[in-house]
């Protein structure tokens, strides 16, 4: 079994447990073991744009050091915010010698690092290393007739230096959906911001964004939305429940992680923890009451 270094991030150990569990399950089906690196720390969540304070670069960079010291040359992520933060810090240390030296001087408890690790998102493992054919081979419950809206959000594709797909026309989710037997839906808000941290103290912003994005998806004929971001999932899912209270004619659409969709197509629905979702995806995925699944 192929083994890759894996960085989970905090959300996947807490609110997005279904994301991690489904990823581990589908990886194992694909013959890949996700080796969680030892002693990883929070990535910092948001890449720091301050030019004169490198304190916030230490966290992400230390994770690359941990992976390198365990003997890996690649590090895989699932959460698109972790992916973005780790990749951009790595890009900084690869391209700015002065800052690299300062960071290494400060981190005197670690071995020096100069960007040897290649940070990759799990979607890159599927698309570039394993290939869609291998994904297709594992599908035992093809998602026939299910219309899936690919929602990339901000972090997966931008900025272009680190994005894993064309920021203006990403297709990696569409390719995945097709490999699973489903139908990708072209919808205009696939890269629209969900409102992000406004969810803490400015919820109206997120409510409005949720209305736009989920409404756009359903008007385009989507049965559900997939994402790679725990914050997007939280915002679009839980805020829709509030939207429903305020606007009873809102047409709810489930929002799930792409690995959960894979687990459904691989006939492993129980790892998904769908019962924790505000908008239950089990009906549209036709797994309601399907307890006697063969696995």
């Amino acid at each position, binding site marked *: 079994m192929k083994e890759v270094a894996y960085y989970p991030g*905090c959300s996947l150990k*807490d609110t997005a447990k279904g994301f991690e569990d489904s990823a581990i399950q589908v990886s194992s089906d694909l013959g890949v073991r996700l080796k969680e690196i030892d002693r990883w720390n*929070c990535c*910092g969540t948001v890449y720091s744009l301050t030019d004169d304070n490198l304190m916030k670069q230490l*966290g992400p960079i230390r994770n690359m050091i941990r992976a390198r010291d365990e003997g890996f040359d690649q590090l895989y992520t699932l959460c698109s915010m972790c992916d973005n933060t780790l990749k951009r810090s790595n890009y900084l240390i690869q391209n700015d010698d002065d800052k690299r030296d300062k960071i290494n001087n400060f*981190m005197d408890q670690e071995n020096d690092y100069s960007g040897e690790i290649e940070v990759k998102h799990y979607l890159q493992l599927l698309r570039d290393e394993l290939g869609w054919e291998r994904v297709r081979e594992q599908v035992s419950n093809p998602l026939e007739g299910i219309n899936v809206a690919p929602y990339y959000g901000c972090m997966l594709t931008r900025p272009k230096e680190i994005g894993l797909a064309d920021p203006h026309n990403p297709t990696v989710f569409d390719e995945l959906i097709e490999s699973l037997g489903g139908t990708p839906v072209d919808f205009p808000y696939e890269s629209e911001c969900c409102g992000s941290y406004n969810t803490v103290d400015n919820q109206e912003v997120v409510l409005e964004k949720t209305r736009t994005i989920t409404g756009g998806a359903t008007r385009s004929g989507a049965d559900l939305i997939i994402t790679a971001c725990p914050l997007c999932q939280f915002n679009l899912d839980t805020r829709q429940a509030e939207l429903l209270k305020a606007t009873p004619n809102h047409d709810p659409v489930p929002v799930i992680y792409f690995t959960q969709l894979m687990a459904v197509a691989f006939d492993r629905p129980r790892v998904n923890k769908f019962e924790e979702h505000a908008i239950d995806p089990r009906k549209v995925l036709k797994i309601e009451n399907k307890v006697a699944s063969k696995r």
Partner: protein
Amino acid sequence: MNEKTEVETVEIFIMGKRYEVPKGLTIMKAMEYSGYQYVRGVGCRGGFCGACATIYRLEGDYKLHTDLACQTTVQDGMYLTQLPFTPAGREQYDLEELEVDNNPLLDLYPELARCVSCNTCSKSCPQDLEVMDFVNEAIRGNIKEVAELSFDCIQCGLCAARCPAEIPHHHVAQLARRIYGRYQAPESEHLEKRVKEIANGQFDDELEELVNLPKEELEERYENREIEE
């Protein structure tokens, strides 16, 4: 006596004032040698109580060092002072009333989420604990891991004094150990049994005998006591 014995000395600065003190003294003893008397910032003098957290600089070195004054020997060019107390916010809680299902650490200490993983806390720890690692476990709600990684914490508070995110690491860890002990750790059957034996008076006679022994015999028994390896 007119003879003077040559004592090797080192030059230190206490709150900016120069002193010469014998080599080999701890920071604590060097300050007392120089005439300072501790009222606060001192405790067991054995490296266990965490009361003597101290900060110092070395001449020509930009770094601010942290340690326990009772455990660190003085070096030439040390700039010293003593912290009487390390201020850090400690939340009030009733262990019996605590909601422990979610993440009580983050509920009571939301500043945990401000951690940027700079590792300054681990660098400042005189016990060489991996403080940042247990802060990360605390953010993820892993009470047991926090309890285990922080087991040797002596609550000196130097981590909290140095943290750019203003996290009171030692108070968070103490809460984690309390929750772990109260709600998660397996019950200790032998302890319960022994408490019952004591309550039933099983050791009263032996204790009574010890209390009434003459001092000499008590000392003799102490010298010849059995020591478990």
